[in-house]
């Protein structure tokens, strides 16, 4: 397997991706790329396959067909001698280390304190010395505005605070790609703002590639440079946020935006 991993490789490339659950086809022959440093927001009605895309990149779901490449490297499947082969768990794990994810339900580990959550993977996966991991974790906690909560238990925190810890935990792995899966959907409306503010700051101060699924259109507009409109497992329209949110070409996009923006 010889692959070109030069600068031109996109951060993420979907090639002929199929995904179905039983008879239900979720993604149908999907092709798209995300370049390094891109902030791509996926929008579309629920059930259109947006979240499935994120979960496929994180290897939380198995591909039914096709390939996903991360920085030119195959993620779970590869084409060898004309045959599609499944890659070993060990290989997946190596590629996966470059990807971080923040979940809708936070998924902090309740058996660990806030700081233990953040240093867990750096210390045990990346083998960073513990003292160094702690220093970095404190910086990140400061960045998300929770410097005083390092010894708290996750369940003692509000939803917004838990989600900010989850963001710090994902960033502690220094991911090249960050997946944000409806990160504000489980939060009360009045605390959505504090989480989005943290993410805006991350977008402003880093060059991490981001793939975002969200219902917060203003946030999508602020942070992303590309927006993909999905429906029934395919891309309906792709545009910059300025164009997508003001003059979309497709009727389906207009209908969807009218519904979510309440115009």
């Amino acid at each position, binding site marked *: 397997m010889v692959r070109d991993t030069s600068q031109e490789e996109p951060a993420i490339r979907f090639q002929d991706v199929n995904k179905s659950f039983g008879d239900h086809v979720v993604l149908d022959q999907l092709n798209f790329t995300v370049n390094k440093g891109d902030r791509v927001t996926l929008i579309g009605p629920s059930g259109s396959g947006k979240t499935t895309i994120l979960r496929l990149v*994180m*290897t*939380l779901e198995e591909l039914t067909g096709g390939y996903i490449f991360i920085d030119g490297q195959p993620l779970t499947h590869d084409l060898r001698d004309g045959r599609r082969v499944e890659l070993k*768990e060990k290989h997946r*794990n190596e590629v*996966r*280390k470059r*990807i*971080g*994810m923040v*979940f809708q*339900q936070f*998924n*902090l*580990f*309740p*058996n660990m304190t806030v700081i233990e959550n953040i240093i*867990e*993977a750096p210390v*045990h*996966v990346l083998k960073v010395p513990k003292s160094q991991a702690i220093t970095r974790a404190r910086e990140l906690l400061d960045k998300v505005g929770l410097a005083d909560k390092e010894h708290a*238990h*996750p*369940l*003692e925190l509000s939803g917004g605070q838990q989600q900010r810890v989850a963001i710090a*935990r*994902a960033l502690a*792995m220094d991911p090249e790609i960050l*997946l944000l899966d409806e990160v504000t959907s489980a939060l009360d409306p009045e605390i959505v703002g504090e989480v989005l503010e943290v993410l805006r700051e991350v977008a402003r101060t880093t060059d991490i590639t981001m793939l975002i699924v969200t219902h917060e259109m203003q946030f999508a507009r602020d942070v992303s440079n590309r927006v993909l409109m999905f429906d029934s497992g395919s891309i309906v329209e792709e545009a910059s946020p300025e164009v997508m949110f003001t003059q979309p070409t497709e009727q389906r996009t207009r209908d969807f935006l009218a519904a979510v923006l309440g115009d």
Partner: protein
Amino acid sequence: MSEHLIKLRDAWPQILDGIGITLVLTVGGAALALVVAIALGLLARFDNILLRGTARVFIEFFRGTSLVVQLFWLYFVLPRFGVELSAIAVGIFALGLNYGAYGAEVVRGSLNSVPAGQWEATTALSLSRTQRMWRVIFPQAWALMIPSLTNLLIQLLKGTAIVSIIAMADLTFMIDKLRQDTDTFFAYTVGLLLYFALASLLTLGMNALEIRAKHKLGRGDSLRSALSFSSSASRAGKGVA
């Protein structure tokens, strides 16, 4: 009655020895059962049909063939294969294998009850299989399994009484000796109360473990503050089939 009490006082050192044997059987059996339960419970979750199948056969076999049969098999039949175990080892093995098989189902069920999001987060952080199980999933499942393990522990304590039939001088045996010196009603009332006290102590200990495990997950008081107004209602040993 007072002469009975004097007899009881005279027999007390022997009864303590009996309690000692009963506790060795209980603690030894429980330790083996815990190892068996975790090993089989983990194996039973594998995708590999061979590993999972082996675990299932073990679990169903040791749950399905009755404690006394296993005890007798180890005691009477195993020597035919050249393996002679001491009576106490036979007791510990039979109790450990039998209750371990029940415990395996508890372990498996508790691991399955840890929310899917926790597994997904371990994948997103690239934790290895071992790290994922022992650092994240198992500590959470542990808190879930303690109440059922407490019930099994009480069952195991009760199960130790049968080993007196393979000539073990446990508490049941000593109570029968006391009966010969006093009378049935007195001796067996003392016996039942002693077993009840042992069961209550074990339950209290397990409840303390549960409080600690829950506190570690950020739920409920710490053990220290829970003890400060010690109100641990003893939970009864609910059995399992």
